[in-house]
């Protein structure tokens, strides 16, 4: 019997959907109002955030299918920040290609909603729905510039591989259900804890679901789509794509890891996940070195970063989960910051975004360049930036679990990554402006996005305590 508490639990999602609806209606019936759709989106996101922070959090809701607590608040907040920043930077970007329509924002919002559902559901049913909501919206967003080949191709590829992975997820869920008789992760966990034999069906099911998530995280070997899709999609979408689904998927994996207590289920999991994690780090970093297109490079860097986050997932427990949560927060701001500057420093979306095009921008666009460099150093994990704090917590958790080899491989990888992050910086500052000065987008809004995220990066870097303590409380709830 649904209560009001259940409504509170999903209030942010409801607000978002309402906002999206309004946007679509405007698109259809009041084309004049289109130019405010960007602002409207920001408003919606803000409203959702308000609901998130102001309304009470009943904990378990919808007869235990979802959970609305500090954890969901934290993740949802990250997601909302992400969508806020992305739609903020999307405005000018779309306007230049005069593609600004309400549906774009509506889709962004829907995707976010889906992600939030994923993050806060314990039952695989709403989880799967959220996943699909997210994916389907993203398929469209990737291909949003449908007259731009690369964009279209990105959409196509994401769609095919995505649907393929989704099918695996679905089938995996089915198997899990078959093995345990329930679709509720926690319940599954309890039945396992109750000493139910670990059947092949269960393992296969879990592997398939995990694979589905790994696909969203673009973890090796599920990463193949990422570079193409990142490069092809409109930059704001890429920014969104690079953080939102990953945040959601990480939480799902965490839920499984904790509910099933995978770490102690035997070494096989540590090996499997370890290979995936380290594989992603290594492959991501090494291949990123040789990329010429900065978006593509960041795709590989993203692969690597999810590899680090995976370490936290492996460790799980309070330490691991809190580390992962901090990582999500940090990764969100630094990535969006980077992509904001990239969307600023591009001549048009059809052309590849060559790193070398940034030459000399350090001195002609100092603030934007500064923001980008901050993101780069942060991604490289150099103090005092968010990226360092995040990695610090991750590796700490690994060391505490005696998984020192994971930590060592991780730091070595972040060393390799310094190579290509540094390249961006020195091309910004140490290479002369090209003879033909590229006419890059000039926009206060995007600048603001870059500024805000850079500021957050520095803030989290210098004083990670707030995020960390929040993450710890959340993690405790998760572990309990």
């Amino acid at each position: 019997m649904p209560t009001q508490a259940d409504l509170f639990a999903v209030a942010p999602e409801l607000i978002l959907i309402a906002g999206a609806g309004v946007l679509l209606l405007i698109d259809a019936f009041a084309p004049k109002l289109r130019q405010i759709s960007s602002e409207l989106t920001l408003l919606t996101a803000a409203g959702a955030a308000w609901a998130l922070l102001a309304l009470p959090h009943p904990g378990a809701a919808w007869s235990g299918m979802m959970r609305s607590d500090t954890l969901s608040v934290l993740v949802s907040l990250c997601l909302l920040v992400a969508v806020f920043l992305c739609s903020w930077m999307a405005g000018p970007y779309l306007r230049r290609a005069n593609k600004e329509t309400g549906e774009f924002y509506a889709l962004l919002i829907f995707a976010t909603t889906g992600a939030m559902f994923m993050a806060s559901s314990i039952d695989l049913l709403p989880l799967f729905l959220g996943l699909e909501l997210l994916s389907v919206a993203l398929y469209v967003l990737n291909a949003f510039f449908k007259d731009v080949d690369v964009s279209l191709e990105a959409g196509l590829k994401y769609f095919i591989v995505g649907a393929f992975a989704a099918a695996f997820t679905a089938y995996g869920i089915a198997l899990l259900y078959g093995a345990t008789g329930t679709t509720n992760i926690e319940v599954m966990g309890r039945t396992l804890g109750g000493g139910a034999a670990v059947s092949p069906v269960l393992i296969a099911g879990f592997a398939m679901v995990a694979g589905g998530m790994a696909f969203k995280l673009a973890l090796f070997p599920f990463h193949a789509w990422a570079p193409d899709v990142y490069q092809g999609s409109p930059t704001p979408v890429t920014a969104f794509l690079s953080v939102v689904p990953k945040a959601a998927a990480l939480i799902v994996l965490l839920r499984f890891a904790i509910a099933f207590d995978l770490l102690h289920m035997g070494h096989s999991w540590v090996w499997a996940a370890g290979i995936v994690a380290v594989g992603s780090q290594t492959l991501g970093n090494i291949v990123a070195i040789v990329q010429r297109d900065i978006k593509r490079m960041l795709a590989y860097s993203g692969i690597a970063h999810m590899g680090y986050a995976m370490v936290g997932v492996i460790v799980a427990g309070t330490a691991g989960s809190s580390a992962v949560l901090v990582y999500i927060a940090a990764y969100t701001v630094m990535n969006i910051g980077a992509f904001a500057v990239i969307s600023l420093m591009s001549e048009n979306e059809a052309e590849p975004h060559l790193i070398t095009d940034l030459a000399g921008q350090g001195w002609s666009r100092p603030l934007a360049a500064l923001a980008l460099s901050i993101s780069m150093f942060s991604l490289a994990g150099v103090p005092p930036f968010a990226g360092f704090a995040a990695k610090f917590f991750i590796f700490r958790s690994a060391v505490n679990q005696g998984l020192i080899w994971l930590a060592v491989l991780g730091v070595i990888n972040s060393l390799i990554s310094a190579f290509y992050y540094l390249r961006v910086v020195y091309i910004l500052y140490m290479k002369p402006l090209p003879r033909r000065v590229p006419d890059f987008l000039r926009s206060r809004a995007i600048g603001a996005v870059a500024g805000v995220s850079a500021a957050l990066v520095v803030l989290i870097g210098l004083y990670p305590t707030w995020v960390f303590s929040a993450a710890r409380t959340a993690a405790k709830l998760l572990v309990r």
Partner: protein
Amino acid sequence: MHIEHLLTFVTLGPAAGALILAFIPGRLEKVQRWAALLISLAEFALSCLLWANFNPDIAGFQLQTAKVPWIPQLGISYHLGIDGISLLLVMLTTLLMPVVIIASWRSISEHVKAFHISLLMLTTAMLGAFVSLDVFLFYVFWELMLIPMYFIIGVWGGPRRIYAAVKFFIYTMVGSVLMLVGILYLAYSNHLQTHVWSFAYSDLLKAGRQLQMGHSFFTSPQMLVFAAFALAFAIKVPMFPFHTWLPDAHTEAPTGGSIILAGVLLKLGTYGFLRYNRPMFPDAWHAFVPLILVLAVIGILYGAWVALVQPDMKKLVAYSSVSHLGFVMLGLAAGTIASTEGAVLQMVNHGLSTGALFLLVGVIYERRHTRMIADYGGIARVVPVYTGLFLLVTLSSIGLPGLNGFVGEFLILAGTWRRYPVAVIFAALGLIFGAIYMLWMVQRVFWNPFTHEENKSLKDINLREVLAVAPLVIFIVWIGVHPTTFLSPMEAAVRSLLMH
């Protein structure tokens, strides 16, 4: 100002200054320079206050700041303090900053603002690394150093600056990333013993001492963690064979950059050995001493040999640094009080004399835009005063008694002799080679027939440059004649440090 805030002011002062500079419009270059200079002078004044309030009889850390929780869940806090060893190095740093700024007055002509901001940030990072009593804090400062130095080399450097900058960054990071794991492991084992999370230096010190010494290297936690720290520091020092980043960085960096690099950055390596490796992992230290000794001696001789055949003055000085820091490492490895005090003093000496050398090379480089020894010869005739100063600094760097270099090397070798006479005999050969390469350079640059006509127009060193080098020269002589001023403050600290 309450005395316990003094260190905070000294450490974070430059950063604050950088912030101020950021708000001064970039086109007012003069203002920028003057502001930076004033800030650095204020810094020096503050650190003199440190000296004034420092009590040489206390062995432990003093003038500590209050412990401000930073990441309390992990027992990480903002906590600074100095002992006699770090005091000297702090003084050295704050002394060098104005020198660098004055030295860069003309040579840095573009992006002046950015240059000074990076410079000040760098200062904060270096000072922080010297004075932090929380290992996490130390690590943050330690890594923070990379970014400004990266820019200083890469933006204002010579032709191959980008290669040098990246090389510097990556090379240094190679060591420090593993150190991070080491730190984490220490904190973890500390937690195992005390069930409290802490990154405080004092706690990790205990934790490190209690680490197991296994039978083989790979099964011995203490040795592994030791190695993790040692690698970071050895690269920074740089010890042979981790030194190849240094010549490139030194040669490509602008004069100011080279001065800081040689003057302070390298000291962080040796300081790290003294502050972390030695007291934290005593057993592992003793196991590694032979290796360190050998590498130190190799460094001394090897650096000297390679310096012998350098056609480029800056490269020559760079390799001489390798040789000099070999002496420092030798002193630390020997671990007698005399040798250790000598080593610490030698850190300062090297900072002064090598800093001065780079400065003077920069002076002539500004005029002729070449650092090639072959492009000079007989210029003592046209630039007598410059020649005099250069000669003085050269002599200090080859350890002429009465100048600073001698005191340091004397103490190091005399102290080391008690334990490792053979090492001393080999190291002493370094004194000969030192004289050879330095004097040979002097001969080819200042003596010999006057070959290049374009040198006729060389202007002798001007007042600004004299002002820049003067402080260094003063201390070069002061330390040479009355080193006790600088030895006595560290006596207690070194003693207690070696007791463990």
